[in-house]
């Protein structure tokens, strides 16, 4: 076996190169060196791939899949007591049943056929997260323990109105809002960047006056979790630290923001 063939066979599968390769390596120190080098690199590779940390709790989540699916299937299998139509059922009863069936199919299709966010919609979500990283002063504020909560509502009102919204004065007290700044997340679209206190630190809230996304969707990276929520004249984007519960903030803003364009 020449060197080229030897190398090809070793590099194709260093862990199990075959008896012929091993015999050739025993007889030729140069070939043995190739084999040793390849097997050392293989051991390093094995160590690298094995060192990927498998998230805690993943095992249980996977087991839950079976439990949840079984529960759903059981639910579907539950006997449905349906009264049989009487022999005297008239045309309208059958017509009504057919209409209901069509409606059910339509609703099911609408509920299950969710194509997910489009590429531009996802790009907007990414842009918001990128904006947070880019704005180092805002990022520093995000990480600060001693945030100044004394925010001027006059200034907040101005920033929000420039973004085309008005925040209900009755909700100010509960908002835990401590930061507001006019910002340009997407060129040519007015937006406001606000921050409110969440359970895991600050929640970034962006009001962007652009085309509303088709459906609410989640965004995230290795640090942040977020939500893009379509609104009347634009989008509300909420971004918090990984695992943050964004529902409270979402409700606060969707219920108390009014578009005033």
């Amino acid at each position, binding site marked *: 076996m020449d*060197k080229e063939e030897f*190398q*090809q066979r070793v*590099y*194709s*599968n*260093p862990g199990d190169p075959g008896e012929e390769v091993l015999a050739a390596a025993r007889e030729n120190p*140069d*070939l043995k*060196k*190739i084999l040793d*080098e*390849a097997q050392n*690199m*293989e051991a*390093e*590779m*094995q*160590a*690298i*791939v*094995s*060192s*990927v*940390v*498998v*998230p805690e709790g*993943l*095992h249980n*989540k*996977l*087991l839950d*899949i*079976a439990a949840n*699916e*079984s529960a759903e299937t059981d639910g579907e299998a539950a006997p449905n007591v349906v009264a049989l139509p009487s022999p005297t059922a008239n045309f309208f009863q059958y017509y009504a049943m057919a209409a209901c069936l069509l409606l059910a199919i339509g609703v099911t299709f609408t509920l299950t056929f969710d194509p*997910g*966010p*489009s*590429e531009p919609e*996802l*790009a907007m*979500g*990414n842009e918001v997260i*990128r904006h947070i990283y880019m704005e180092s002063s805002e990022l520093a504020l995000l990480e600060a323990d001693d945030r100044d909560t004394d925010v001027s509502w006059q200034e907040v009102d101005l920033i929000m109105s420039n973004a085309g919204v008005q925040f209900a004065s009755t909700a100010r007290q509960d908002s835990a809002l401590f930061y507001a700044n006019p910002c340009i997340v997407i060129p040519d679209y007015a937006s406001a960047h606000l921050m409110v206190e969440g359970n895991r630190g600050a929640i970034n809230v962006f009001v962007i006056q652009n085309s509303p996304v088709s459906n609410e969707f989640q*965004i*995230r*990276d*290795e640090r942040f979790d977020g939500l893009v929520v379509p609104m009347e004249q634009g989008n509300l984007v909420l971004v918090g630290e990984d695992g943050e519960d964004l529902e409270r903030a979402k409700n606060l803003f969707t219920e108390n923001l009014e578009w005033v364009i």
Partner: protein
Amino acid sequence: MSDAPVIHGSTKQQRYESLVAALYQDVYRYAFWICKNQHLAEDLVQETFLRAWRSLESLQNDKAAKAWLFTILRRENARLYERYRPELVDIEGQTLAEKGEHEPDTQMDRELLHNAINRLDSDYRDPLLLQVIGGFSGKEIAKILDLNNNTVMTRLFRARSKLKQDFGVDADEVAE
């Protein structure tokens, strides 16, 4: 790869649980390497096992369970993420365990090798990861990637040659 079946039990639930117990870590590690993001990888693994649960009856040969799962995972990745993949920051090296437990030289070598694997073209990285993480044979990889066996063996050879080159030791240099 070991021919020992990884699925045990008589009920669907028992078979699924044994499948999860035996393979979820390898499936996650493979998902992580193709997504380079732990959240996406976790979602992908959950989606993969959901599909596996729903079609467990279609798995005729329990010995092929691992290749079956990896194939589902690759399809799910293509379906869910390859088309609309968010531009996520590559968390290269950040989720690797035991980072501080090695000698600095060893750690540096591993980081170099880790980066070199990531830089490989997917044509070469895919079969390599299937072999290193999944322990698949050339034929199994060929089936998963829908290639012929010779192509797979050539790509594995080129992948390791490239790594050797990037890693600082040229294969030819070693041989001479």
